[in-house]
């Protein structure tokens, strides 16, 4: 636990990424406590302005906000109660509630698909890399075939044929179609590892193959598996948003992709309802940035050569600490003769 904490503190990217991720998890878990409205019912008038905008515009009727952001008189009149933090959609639903409840679906699909991908990639990659021979031939062929079949159209066509796919279905089809890349990387690494002395030693000692895989090989793959997990979570969140946006998801669920779908179908962009577009976009961008930072951090931890500051920061810190420690030991010299200090002062 302390190790993880230290790791986060020493790596600003990891810290930044995990803060964002935990913020979203917090919002998703406590969504009912954080919102005043239900997400899937009409709770306001269509297209109300976000409440902070309304309040500022009411306070300064001639200010910048009133003239540029809240410039529609009719909408302003409709949202004069300022009840909705992020405004309402065309259907009069609360955007903040949709965003908070939507985080559940997006994170759920992301992590669900991530776990499926990670599991499949690890099992297939290690089996292919460690057992070799016929097993490797078959599994590698499967990987290569999966890699050359285009992902996006396959996912869209699958989702289309299933029809109004719910979050669970989406997570499963993403999971089962995108394990190949991770499996390939893990296979290559496993092959390299199984040539190492410690694996050979374990084999000579007569350890069972399962034990070698779980005790000798798997722990050395943790960073790669971790990177592929974060990568798949990112990919799954992106694909969920895309599939829902295209209208291939179940329109009854509340997710960020469905929010974007509603923006598109109610042509909110064209009528100038910027808040309805910016809310899901902002959420998706923030979460992606957080995950990308985490991914970058995992990459750096796994491969020190790629760090932009290879150890220099630590070196500087050590140097500073060293100087300080020395300074404490060096004592002020005792004057050699009376009046020396005055002399030194004059010379200066």
């Amino acid at each position, binding site marked *: 636990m302390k190790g993880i904490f230290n790791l986060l503190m020493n790596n600003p990217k990891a810290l930044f990424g995990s803060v964002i991720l935990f913020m979203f998890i917090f919002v998703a878990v406590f969504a009912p406590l954080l919102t005043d409205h239900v997400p899937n019912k009409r709770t306001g008038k269509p297209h109300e302005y976000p409440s902070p905008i309304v309040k500022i515009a009411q306070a300064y009727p001639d200010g910048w906000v009133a003239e540029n952001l809240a410039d529609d008189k009719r909408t302003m009149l409709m949202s004069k109660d300022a009840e909705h933090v992020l405004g309402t959609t065309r259907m009069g639903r609360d955007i903040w509630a949709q965003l908070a409840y939507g985080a559940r679906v997006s994170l759920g699909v992301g992590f669900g698909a991530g776990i499926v991908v990670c599991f499949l990639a690890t099992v297939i990659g290690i089996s292919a890399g460690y057992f070799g021979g016929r097993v490797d031939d078959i599994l590698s062929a499967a990987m290569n075939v999966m890699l050359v079949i285009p992902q996006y159209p396959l996912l869209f066509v699958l989702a289309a044929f299933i029809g109004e796919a719910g979050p669970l279905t989406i997570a499963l089809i993403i999971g089962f179609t995108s394990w190949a890349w991770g499996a390939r990387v893990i296979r290559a690494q496993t092959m390299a590892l199984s040539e190492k002395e410690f694996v050979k030693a374990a084999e000579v000692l007569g350890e069972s193959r399962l034990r070698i895989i779980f005790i000798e090989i798997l722990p050395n793959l943790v960073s790669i598996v971790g990177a592929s997990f974060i990568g798949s979570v990112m990919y799954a969140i992106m694909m969920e948003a895309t599939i829902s946006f295209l209208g291939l998801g179940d329109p009854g669920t509340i997710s960020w992709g469905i929010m974007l779908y509603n923006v598109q179908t109610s042509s909110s962009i064209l009528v100038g309802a910027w808040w309805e577009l910016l809310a899901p976009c902002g959420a998706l961008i923030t979460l992606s940035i957080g995950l990308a930072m985490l991914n970058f951090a995992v990459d750096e931890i796994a491969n020190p050569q790629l760090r932009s*500051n290879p150890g220099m920061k630590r070196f500087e810190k050590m140097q500073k600490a060293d100087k300080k420690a020395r300074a404490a030991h060096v004592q002020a010299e005792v004057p050699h003769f009376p009046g020396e200090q005055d002399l030194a002062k004059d010379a200066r």
Partner: protein
Amino acid sequence: MGFFLRRLSFYFIALLFAATLNFIIPRAMPGDPVTMMFANATVQVTPERIAAMKELLGFVDGPLIVQFGMYIKSVLTWDLGVSVQFYPLSVNTVLGNAVGWSLFLAGSAVLLSFTLGSVLGIFAAWTRGSKFDAIISPGMLVFQAVPQVVTAMLLMFVFAVGLQWFPTGYAYSPGLTPDWTSWEFLKNVAYHAVLPLIGASIVQIGGFLIAMRNNMINLLGEDYITMAKGKGLSENRVVFNYAARNAMLPSVTALSMSLGMAIGGQMIIEIIFNYPGLGTVLLNAINARDYQVLQGQLLVMTLFMLFFNLLADMLYVLLDPRLRKGA
């Protein structure tokens, strides 16, 4: 030659696999596509009509193995059937009209992002640890992580609807007749392609940048770079002639592969900007339950992937002499 034969046979197997997938997906789903098609028809539907439609669309009755044989035969003879949505037109025509636009968009996006990404990557690697590297490398990766739906919608909202600098959709103005010799038309096409192009390239720059940067960093420690520096060559020469040239190798083959991926990957951009490429065709086919076009679409996209992968293999052999001897 052995290397090529092995690759070719693998690609053929992959194609057969894709065709099988194409065959299985519509048949594994509940409901018969043809019956579903008639479900919301307004005219009287007789069993004969359904049978006739089935035959027209290539859904032969009979044991699965016979159906499969017929399907593989139609794939190999490149007879993809008739589109339901644009009734008399064949799937070949419908897809053929869209392929050009998709290739144009994907090709220019990949070229643009490859050039930008590689140049930025070279500088990032050379000035490793500087402010430039610390900002540009994670920055571009972040752009790559943002879903394309979001970038495309925001681009459209800001530049097409808000500032009205660019058109909101389609590949050329509705009034114009396509005439590839007239300067006016070409200008119009370029003007309409700006936003989709930005949307499609911004997500790819990061990949090329990081690949280039990591290759360069690994190469910069090599002895011949130290040697070149020791000879007193100018910095430009060391960077571009010694380091970048070798670091480029994996990137060039990645270029070809990403062309195949881009055609599938940019579908969402095409849909948002209503660009008349394969993506828009796919969405329309999905909405119209046009199964023939859907199947053909998946097959065409797989073919593109395979073709560009093969091209990547060839480039690899061409660029890396070690492979030529080894195989």
